[in-house]
């Protein structure tokens, strides 16, 4: 049983902070940033290689760097950070002790050992199999082993989260339902269980196959189950970063959910249907029926998309409501113009919201349409799409969250505040460009994971459209911008943790437990007289863009070779 000595009261938010949980949050956040820095560097080298005028790396190094880039940022950075989010959303937001901190440390160590092992395997050069490691292409055994250790660690961390929910409820550290942000984290944790289970089911036999115990792994079955992990892990991100959006809006602006019911139902749709979208990767495979493809790829009739579109309204809506309550009521957009754009947490969060919707969200639905997928499968359109979701969406949201974690958890003030202020814009513009220009190149037919679009060494010749070279060059430039933004982030965060001015020692528990920046006016965020015209304009623009782009692609499809 936790003693009071294990807690401090946060003087800024009034939250009761369990110190062992705080230590785990710190460790996971630091590991996350380290892997972001490593993976980001690999990513930059990949983009510079794909810029034909630069063509930085030789082929072997390119495929090696691409494999490392995928694993380091798509798995290690994101999941370490998500562990921090889970511990924060459970122990800290519920004012509870963390269940089994020792298991939390075991999880952390397993994840760290796994991530380092996988990186070593890749750097040794025998495991350039890409993040997806499709069989029968074979990596070194310790590549799979590293991923398995990482996954097991993550699963333990997820169960510490569930355990904390039980502890908090049993010890009655809160009244009623868990906070919305915790509910979003719960959504992420549930998806994580399915994700990690799929990973274990497929990676353990693949590991045994790599050391010769199993003779054959069926490539189609591998692909089905692997994507249960590979795509669902990105759905953990979606749930986690939506939770982070709500958290930042609440902490920075005092925003309240427009409606608990609507926002939670939207998360409920995620829990039920989001993972089905792993089917997005199997739409042009032989031997799987169109019924399976249509049902799964559409998340059971687009109910998870409905969830996302609801968050797309309720997140900016809650911000608009909070701003209007503060008196920014002129016209349609005064609330947005006068939002705290100089606060990197808010700026990063809002850019993440807009870019996730417009770049990642719309294109994800297009890619995930059974027949339209044929136009884009395995072209650069695919990485273009997921750099819109995972980089412009998740990574930017997590970076924004860090600007709150540093003062609240590390108790340090940000160093170089001007740099921090510009960081989300620099990184956001870079990420948006990467996403757009890769999608442009993909629309022109450029393959993903491809070292040489001039086909110099090939027996036959092929000239890709000239526009593709322009796209790849612009992509390279944007990658440099994003890398600078990433560097700025690492400098600010590491600098602040090491050299930032210490914030005052934890205040005694006598401080009022209510957060000073929240002054509830109405009992429901959007209830009563509050109208949200600005948000309605934003979502209308989004909807029109969505519908138009959707049917443009059908028109494009109708122009290719008839086939059945």
């Amino acid at each position, binding site marked *: 049983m936790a003693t009071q000595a294990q807690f401090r009261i946060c003087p800024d*938010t009034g*939250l009761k902070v369990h110190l062992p949980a705080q230590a785990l949050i710190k460790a996971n956040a630091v590991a996350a940033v380290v892997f972001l820095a490593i993976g980001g560097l690999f990513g930059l080298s990949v983009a510079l290689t794909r810029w034909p005028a630069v063509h930085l790396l030789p*082929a072997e190094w390119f495929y090696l760097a691409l494999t490392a880039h995928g694993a380091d940022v798509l798995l290690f950075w994101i999941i370490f950070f998500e562990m921090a989010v889970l511990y924060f959303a459970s122990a800290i937001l519920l004012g509870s002790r963390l269940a089994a901190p020792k298991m939390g440390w075991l999880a952390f160590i397993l994840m760290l050992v796994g991530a380092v092992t996988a990186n070593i395997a890749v750097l040794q050069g025998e495991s350039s*199999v890409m993040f997806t490691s499709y069989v*029968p*292409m074979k990596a070194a055994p310790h590549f799979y082993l590293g991923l398995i250790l990482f996954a097991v660690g993550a699963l333990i961390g997820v169960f510490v989260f569930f355990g904390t929910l039980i502890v908090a409820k049993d010890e009655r550290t809160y009244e*009623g339902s*868990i*906070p919305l*942000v915790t509910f979003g984290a719960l959504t992420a944790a549930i998806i994580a269980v399915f994700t990690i289970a799929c990973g274990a089911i497929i990676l353990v036999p693949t590991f045994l196959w790599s050391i010769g115990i199993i003779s054959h792994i069926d*490539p189609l079955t591998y*692909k089905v189950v692997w994507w249960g992990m590979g795509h669902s892990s990105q759905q953990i991100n979606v749930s986690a970063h939506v939770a982070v959006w*709500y958290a930042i*809006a*609440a902490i920075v602006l005092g*925003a*309240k959910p*427009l*409606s*608990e*019911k609507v*926002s939670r139902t939207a998360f409920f749709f995620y829990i039920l249907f989001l993972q089905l979208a792993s089917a997005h990767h199997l739409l*042009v*495979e*032989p*031997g799987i029926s*169109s019924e399976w*493809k249509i049902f799964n790829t*559409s998340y059971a*009739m*687009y109910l998870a998309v*409905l969830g996302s579109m609801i968050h797309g*309204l309720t997140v900016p809506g809650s911000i608009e409501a909070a701003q209007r309550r503060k008196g920014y009521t002129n016209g349609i957009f005064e609330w947005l113009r006068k939002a705290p754009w100089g606060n990197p947490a808010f700026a990063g969060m809002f850019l993440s919201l807009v870019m996730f919707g417009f770049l990642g969200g719309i294109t994800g639905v297009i890619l995930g*349409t059974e*027949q339209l997928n*044929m136009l884009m*499968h*395995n*072209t650069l359109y695919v990485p273009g799409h997921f750099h819109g979701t995972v980089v412009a969406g998740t990574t930017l949201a997590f970076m924004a969250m860090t600007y709150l974690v540093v003062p609240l958890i590390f108790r340090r003030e940000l160093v170089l505040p001007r740099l921090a202020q510009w960081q989300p814009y620099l990184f956001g513009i870079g990420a948006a460009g990467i996403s757009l220009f890769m999608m442009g190149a993909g629309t022109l*037919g450029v*393959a993903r994971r*491809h070292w*040489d679009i001039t*086909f110099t*060494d*090939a*027996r036959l010749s*092929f000239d890709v459209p000239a526009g593709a070279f322009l796209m790849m060059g612009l992509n390279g430039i944007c990658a440099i911008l994003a890398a600078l933004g990433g560097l700025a982030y690492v400098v600010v965060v590491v600098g602040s943790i090491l050299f930032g001015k210490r914030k005052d020692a934890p205040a005694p528990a006598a401080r009022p437990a209510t*957060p000073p920046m*929240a002054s509830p006016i109405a009992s429901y965020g*959007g*209830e009563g007289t*509050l109208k*949200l015209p600005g948000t309605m304009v934003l*979502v209308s623009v989004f909807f029109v863009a969505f519908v138009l782009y959707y049917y443009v692609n059908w028109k494009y*499809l109708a122009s290719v*070779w*008839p*086939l*059945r």
Partner: protein
Amino acid sequence: MAIHPPKQMIWWHEPVERSELVWIAVAFLWGLVMFGTMVAWHFVGKQNLSNEAYRITPDVFQARTEAAAEKYKVREEGNTGIPVVRPPPGGDAYMLARLWEWWPILELEKGQSYRLHISSLDWQHGFSLQPTNVNLQIHPGYEMVLTVTPDAAGQFTVVCNEFCGIGHHTMIGRIYVVDKK
């Protein structure tokens, strides 16, 4: 706030703003429209995969492709030694993927339909037909069969767009589409 438990013990009964309800309805209906579009395209559209597939060993598929190539070979491509194969219109066309080539080169007639059989002899490959941009995933051990009807004459390139090792970026194939003689 979203970081605190809901103010009401029972929040399920709380009122929902009208504009929120409108948006939810619009988003739900749009989802149904998109779902319906996918289904409808199977009836009105000309680009749908049949998903027809068979289990096949690489040896058998290679033998069939080589037999077809020998039977219908019309010439060799330049000095590459790669046969150009012209299967009969309406008949079966075979193309195999292996490290790192698409083999053989096919010559098809515009406006005619062919049953195109594709499989891989080793790893996974990506069949990316350019510049028309049709992309399919090719697995070893599985034969994908699709009926294609080229609707424009010209030279088409098959690029591999699934990573398949160090020679991946040299893996190119070709399909000629010619007007009917």
